[in-house]
């Protein structure tokens, strides 16, 4: 599949000129009507989402970014389902954010985070497919001079049923493109789906096995130079001075530039030369006021926030938890914590920018094309119609590449060298030490039981960092970060699964200077550990089975209960585990999906864990591609368990200590458990759930609960390497 932008010199010229003219054609014109909007190769658009080539190739436009999660294939399935095209003829392409903005956001939101890639697009991309199908059928009917109602489409072939006449999409595409799109289209009933729900192969695999797939790091442009960058190691600090003369004679060096207040970049013929020179460049930093901050000082500050008398934002409350706790027959209390984590995408951050007096273009992998575009417009200072961003396959995203820091830097450097394309690449060390980290939090949980061992009250006090306060302050609600309560809310797409008569979940917000970000799973990673490990503690404190204890609290949340029951049944919870094997359970809800996991582990000498097997259940309401969902579930466990065992970024002298995979390790194949996925979409017309992130959070508590079952030792902090526990 040749669906990603290919950059050779010719493509570059097309990118600059022909795409631009296609863009101009689209301006101020409604789709369809007398003027045909054409793709770069001249083929007609049948609405914004579909281009049909004369050879019957179907090009489906994908606005969201592919970073491995499979959205590109899933979104194409949604369009193709309604289009009734031949799946073997489907290819895809990315419209650019600039084109979209010029066409009044014809392709909607480009943002690819929050497991929204598919679920937030389902209606309009399916309508895009259906609209094109109606237009293609109408064009054929007009040609045959028969009523469109007598024609049907299947597999890219249109048939006039009474006469048996047939034609193909490719043959009528030109005529269809001239028609006025229908005002409204009816979407199929899910029971009639032929492509949605099928485990189709990905569309983007072939080039990933031959080295041909182009990532941002692979961009080559005529005359391009390469930049390496160093930012002040203490977040918030600035460049004080640097001694350019010291590296002036080094091979390949073209220029040394300041990037904003906080960074210096060396531009050279190759990146290796740029990096070598940058490492030799003496830089004096003004570290600002955070040079004394450490993990210990952050932990102390967060610990103070656990005191119930400290002010806190309330996220979920019913009854009177504090009063009920005061009158409880028995109380159980525990404090948990979760550290900073780096995304550590395999492809370090990079972006290529070309700035001239009247144009600024960026080539990069980004999870948010429109945000990258807006950053390009802002930093270049040029009007939006003179800017654009060309998206590439991302070598991992996990939330990090929705930020635009690296795009801004590339443009800022290119602006200092007009006419020369500049590829900025962060070293792994830079990437590791200038992340947008999984936020740091602690949690004190206090539970009360009555004399009959019924759980009557729970106070869950979270103390720690808000992501929104740093990244999206406009989304705060009266100072509160609602995303903090992911999986803990009373209702909605990330609702708490337990009914407890007196409940208080609140957040004492404390924002250290380390920048937080959306790390795959976001706030469910720690919230699920806090809730699900503590539920195990509570069950055991009253001598009850962890599953039975949970079930009693879940009678009002049947979908939460259904996934938990599914994993319990499949792992055989009601039967003894194999000799030497211990089990743990967890469930949670996030991103609109209900998830649960049951783990089987062995522990050797108390310090080595072999995770044999994890059974995982997901109810994403609708499942677009079960094969890809299975891969997301297993992949999320690798990411989440890497964080649990090996992760944790620590702060010393205001900076992150870990610099590479030797100190911030990641799971290997020998450590991979067998993951058995149960995909159980409950359907019913409700909002669709996501799949990239929800399951990540249940792996860690399931394993930690199994560890307790094996050892009697409760682990309440992450990572395990700090406790000298590792994979067997």
């Amino acid at each position, binding site marked *: 599949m040749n669906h990603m932008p290919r950059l050779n010199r010719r493509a570059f010229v097309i990118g600059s000129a022909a795409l631009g003219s296609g863009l101009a054609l689209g301006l101020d014109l409604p789709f369809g009507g007398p003027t045909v909007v054409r793709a770069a190769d001249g083929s007609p658009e049948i609405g914004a989402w579909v281009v049909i080539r004369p050879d019957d190739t179907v090009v489906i436009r994908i606005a969201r970014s592919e970073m491995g999660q499979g959205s590109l294939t899933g979104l194409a399935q949604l369009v193709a389902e309604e289009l009734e095209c031949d799946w073997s003829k489907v290819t895809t392409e990315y419209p650019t954010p600039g084109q979209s903005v010029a066409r009044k956001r014809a392709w909607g939101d480009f943002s690819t985070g929050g497991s929204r890639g598919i679920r937030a697009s389902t209606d309009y991309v399916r309508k895009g497919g259906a609209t094109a199908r109606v237009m293609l059928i109408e064009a054929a009917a007009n040609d045959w001079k028969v009523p469109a109602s007598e024609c049907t489409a299947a597999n890219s072939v249109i048939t006039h049923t009474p006469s048996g006449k047939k034609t193909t999409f490719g043959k009528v595409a030109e005529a269809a493109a001239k028609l006025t799109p229908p005002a409204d289209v009816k979407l199929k009933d899910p029971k009639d789906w032929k492509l949605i729900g099928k485990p189709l192969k990905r569309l983007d695999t072939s080039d990933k096995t031959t*080295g041909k797939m182009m990532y941002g790091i692979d961009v080559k442009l005529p005359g391009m130079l390469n930049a390496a960058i160093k930012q002040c190691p203490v977040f918030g600090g600035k460049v004080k001075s640097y001694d350019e003369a010291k590296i002036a004679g080094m091979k390949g060096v073209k220029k040394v530039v300041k990037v904003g207040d906080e960074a210096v970049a060396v531009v050279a013929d190759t990146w*290796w030369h740029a990096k070598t020179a940058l490492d030799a460049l003496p830089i004096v930093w003004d570290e600002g006021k955070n040079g004394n901050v450490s993990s210990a000082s952050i932990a102390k500050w967060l610990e103070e926030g656990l005191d119930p008398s400290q002010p806190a934002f309330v996220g979920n409350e019913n009854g009177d938890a504090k009063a009920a706790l005061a009158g409880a027959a028995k109380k159980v209390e525990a404090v948990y914590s979760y550290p900073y984590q780096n995304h550590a995408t395999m492809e370090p951050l990079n972006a290529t920018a070309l700035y001239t007096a009247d144009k600024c273009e960026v080539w990069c992998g980004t999870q948010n094309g429109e945000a990258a575009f807006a950053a390009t417009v802002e930093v270049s200072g040029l009007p939006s119609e003179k800017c654009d961003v060309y998206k590439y396959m991302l070598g991992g995203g996990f939330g990090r590449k929705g930020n635009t820091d690296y795009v801004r830097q590339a443009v800022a450097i290119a602006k200092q060298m007009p006419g020369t394309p500049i590829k900025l690449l962060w070293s*792994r060390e830079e990437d590791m030490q200038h992340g947008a980290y999984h936020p740091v939090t602690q949690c004190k949980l206090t539970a009360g039981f009555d004399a009959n061992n019924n759980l009557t009250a729970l106070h869950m006090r979270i103390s720690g960092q808000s992501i929104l306060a740093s990244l999206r302050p406009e989304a705060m609600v009266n100072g509160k970060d609602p995303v903090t309560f992911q999986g803990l809310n009373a209702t909605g797409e990330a609702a708490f699964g337990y009914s407890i008569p007196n409940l208080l979940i609140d957040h004492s917000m404390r924002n250290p200077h380390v920048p937080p970000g959306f790390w795959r799973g976001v706030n469910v990673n720690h919230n699920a550990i806090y809730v699900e490990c503590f539920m195990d503690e509570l069950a055991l404190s009253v001598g009850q089975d962890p599953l039975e204890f949970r079930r009693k609290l879940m009678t009002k949340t049947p979908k939460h209960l259904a996934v938990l029951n599914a994993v319990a049944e499949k792992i055989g919870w009601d039967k003894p585990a194999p000799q030497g094997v211990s089990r743990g359970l967890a469930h949670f809800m996030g991103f609109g999906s209900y998830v649960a996991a049951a783990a089987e582990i062995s522990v050797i000498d108390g310090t080595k864990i072999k995770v044999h097997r994890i059974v995982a259940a997901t109810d994403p309401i609708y499942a677009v591609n079960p094969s890809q969902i299975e891969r997301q579930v297993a992949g999320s466990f690798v990411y989440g368990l890497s964080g649990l065992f090996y992760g944790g970024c620590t702060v010393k002298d205001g900076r992150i200590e870990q610099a590479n995979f030797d100190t911030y390790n990641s799971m290997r194949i020998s450590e*991979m458990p067998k993951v058995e996925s149960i995909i159980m979409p409950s359907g019913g017309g409700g909002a669709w759930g996501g799949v990239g992130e929800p399951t990540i959070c249940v792996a860690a508590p399931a394993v930690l609960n199994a560890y307790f079952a094996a050892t009697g030792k409760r682990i309440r902090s992450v990572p395990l390497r700090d406790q000298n526990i590792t994979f067997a």
Partner: protein
Amino acid sequence: MNQGIAMANLTINGKSINVDVEPETPLLWAIRENVGLTGTKYGCGIAQCGACTVHVDGVAMRSCGVTVGEAAGKQITTIEGLAPNGVLTKVQQAWINNDVPQCGYCQSGMIMAVTALLKEKPKPTDQDIDDAITNICRCGTFQQVREAIHAAANA
């Protein structure tokens, strides 16, 4: 040719190529920047992740940890050299059949490491795989990688 001040000769995918780089340059960067073969990926630069794995005289090596000077005179194969005529190897084909890659960034290195393993052990056990394949994949494709290795071994 440029100034010719630091010319090295590399044999990559069967072709002899003169590159204008210092001998201490990591082979990875000579392959990517001087030769222009970008299928070999940069992941860590310290031989931890394996994204830059190539074959040097048939042995899987992390090219970020090998210098141009050390690689000169040896047969270097990159991901682009596995299927020079467009006929995919059984490993590549197994990768496609098993829908292995997610983001795909680590997969060039993964495929190179697996290709070397199968050359040494045509029917590897799970333990052989665990011992030999130590590449990092942050997407977490390991389950499919293992299936595809067995599939390739039995193809």
